[in-house]
């Protein structure tokens, strides 16, 4: 017991609280553990964009942004610890890049009144702003993604998928199971057959799954994977000579990390994406000048322009725009988390604004509202060119089938509301 008390005393010393920052944004990142390869570029992109704003513009609306990074190792307990450690410093918004941690934080942020921004991951039905006041997941969510792929395939097949076989290779976890209800509904609607192929985490060994795919000969294979599972799946698909251009991953299965280990065999693999990638956008000149050149790049500084780096940057961009919006609405620069929530809800990002920010044709324009926290849900398809080591966008933004998704979102959020006694807003 004495030992425990001394340890506590040491901890209390170690916990010297940092000074209150003007705009404090915690970055719950993971640079270690099984998913580090995905977490590193995302965190770098997220940090670098705010560094750019600080260095180039002197912050947002004259207020410096302080990004406090906290390591979660993709572990929910560490995520909770990070949340509690950072929220006391006036944290404005959380973006944990983990579906598990997101589920954990949804009740907590709702009680603590801090917005939670989960672009392209997290709880899909949080798109329903009537129930989830504090959660935002625009511009797109998993169910949109599933529908986007099916719509793309419909386009490829002249609008008819009858009698086709589509296999879904998924991470056997909450995240991987997300698209199944949507795809089941879409299979009924369009008359294709859905084959579910679960892969247990981490997915180092997938021989049986790919033998099954080889036997069943599906017309298309979709993938909901993360971490090492992606790389192994692409390698195994290449091993069985599955046509790579019939293999389509969600946006979390479409980064350089996933295709590079397979080398040339990955050529032609397709994946959804919410944004462009590569460093051909005007903003990279500024990044080079103010951040990388000045030696202020986050991490090792070798991730710039990769898909996940771009995604981290995109998330930071949306957050900074929401901050700007709420500064505009309240008229003062040092906003609070509650004011930022209003900013998120009133946020509108147009193509003109994206071009102004140095990212023309990078992401889709969207406008949030009290009921709509989910955005239009569009995504593009990108294809990997192994010889040039580059992702190429091969389609414009594809819209999801809201007729199928909206009822699913309503049903799931209604179940959550009933379980937790939440009254509908926005009426």
């Amino acid at each position, binding site marked *: 017991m004495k030992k425990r008390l001394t340890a506590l005393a040491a901890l209390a010393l170690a916990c010297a609280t940092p000074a209150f920052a003007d705009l404090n944004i915690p970055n719950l990142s993971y*640079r*270690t*553990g*099984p998913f*580090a*390869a995905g977490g*590193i570029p995302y965190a770098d992109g997220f940090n670098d964009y705010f560094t750019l704003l600080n260095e180039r513009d002197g912050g947002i609306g004259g207020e410096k942004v302080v990004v406090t990074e906290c390591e979660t190792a993709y572990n929910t307990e560490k995520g909770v610890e990070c949340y509690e450690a950072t929220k006391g410093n006036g944290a404005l918004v959380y973006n944990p890049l983990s579906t598990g941690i997101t589920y954990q934080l949804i009740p907590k942020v709702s009680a603590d009144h801090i917005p939670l921004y989960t672009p392209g991951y997290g709880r899909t039905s949080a798109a329903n702003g009537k129930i989830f006041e504090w959660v935002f997941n625009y511009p797109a969510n998993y169910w949109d993604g599933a529908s986007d792929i099916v719509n793309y395939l419909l386009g490829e097949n002249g609008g008819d998928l009858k009698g086709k076989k589509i296999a879904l290779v998924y991470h*056997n976890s909450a995240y991987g199971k997300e698209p199944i209800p949507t795809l089941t509904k879409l299979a009924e609607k369009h008359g294709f057959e859905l084959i*579910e*192929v*679960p*892969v*247990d985490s*981490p*997915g*180092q*060994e997938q*021989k*049986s799954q790919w*033998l*099954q795919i*080889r*036997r069943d000969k599906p017309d298309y294979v979709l993938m909901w994977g993360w*971490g*090492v599972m992606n*790389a*192994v799946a692409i*390698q*195994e698909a*290449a*091993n*069985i*000579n599955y046509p790579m251009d019939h293999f389509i991953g969600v946006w979390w299965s479409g980064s350089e*990390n996933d295709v*590079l*280990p397979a*080398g040339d*065999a990955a050529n032609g693999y397709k994946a959804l994406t919410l944004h462009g990638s590569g460093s051909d956008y005007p903003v990279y000149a500024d990044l080079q000048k103010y951040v990388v050149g000045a*030696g202020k790049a986050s991490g*090792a*500084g*070798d991730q710039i322009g990769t898909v996940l780096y771009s995604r981290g940057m995109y998330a930071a961009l949306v957050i900074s725009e929401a901050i700007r919006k709420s500064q505009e609405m309240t008229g003062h620069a040092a906003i609070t988390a509650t004011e930022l929530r209003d900013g998120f809800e009133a946020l509108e990002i147009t193509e003109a604004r994206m071009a102004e920010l140095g990212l023309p044709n990078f992401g889709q324009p969207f406008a949030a509202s009290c009921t709509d926290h989910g955005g239009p849900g569009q995504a593009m398809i990108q294809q990997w060119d192994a010889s040039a080591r580059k992702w190429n966008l091969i389609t414009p933004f594809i819209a999801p089938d809201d007729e199928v998704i909206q009822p699913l979102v309503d049903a799931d959020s209604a179940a959550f509301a009933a379980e937790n006694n939440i009254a509908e807003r926005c009426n």
Partner: protein
Amino acid sequence: MSEQLLYAAEAGLNGLMAGVLYALVALGFVLIFKASGIFNYAQGVLALFAALTLVGFQNGQVPFAHLINAVFGTQIHEFGWRLPAVVAILLTGAVMVLLAILVERLILKHLVNQAPIILFMATIGLAYFLEGFGDIMWGADIKKLDVGLPQGISDTVESVTDSLFGYGFFIDRLDIVASIVAALLVLSLTLFSQFTKYGRALRAVADDHQAALSVGISLRFIWVMVWSIAGIVAMVAGVMWGAKSGVQFSLSLIALKALPVLMLGGFTSIPGAIVGGLIIGMGEKLFEFFIGPMIGGATENWFAYVLALLFLVFRPQGLFGERIIERV
């Protein structure tokens, strides 16, 4: 032959190949357990560490680059050379030997004669340490491992089986290579332990520590030797798995695949590890093929353990384990 039977044969055959890879990991466990009675939890991390080191050498990465950059504010990442695979493998082997010496000096020496669970715990500490050390030395991002191993479907097997049965079997060329390497490894280990002086010393230690000590065999040298061999076996396993998935953290989890193999084959038997690996590999693939679809799939993780458990109930010492004789 009916189609179902052909598919089953294909699944079983692939299971055998996967089993060889499991056996490769299990082999490292067996060697250390036999010579020192230590259940080496760090075996998986050793494989990861070896693979990281190999890739690092090959690509001319600067070790501890991130730490150096953070402390001194420099921007160094690579030496700018690329070593040929053979040189990198030899260098990695040397690192594994060095690691074995350090493990013996710093840990094992101080823990002689402790209960097995204490030694087990010490290897867990080692696993933690190496995990952090490997990451800090070489970085936590995913790395492509290329030592020139072939990959992809073997066309010969496919065309031969196609002409025989009308259905081309899928066999990964990497698996064929892995099987050959594993066979060579086991053969050379057997020759080593049967026909060389040190091999005999190793077997003597495995039989009876005290008797071996009394005839002048240095226990500490044997431990360094056996940890070096286990390190090199870990490197081979790391290369085979890393070629498929790239080198990253999850590689250390392959140890979990080896545990049911150990249970089945017995902790002290090298042939046991091989046969156990084959049975587990084939069993789990066939179960996933026949029963998996009925109960929702992804059964491989637990089935291996349940199979081994059922087996142990009837034969508690494993397939080739030493008979447990208990006296009061």
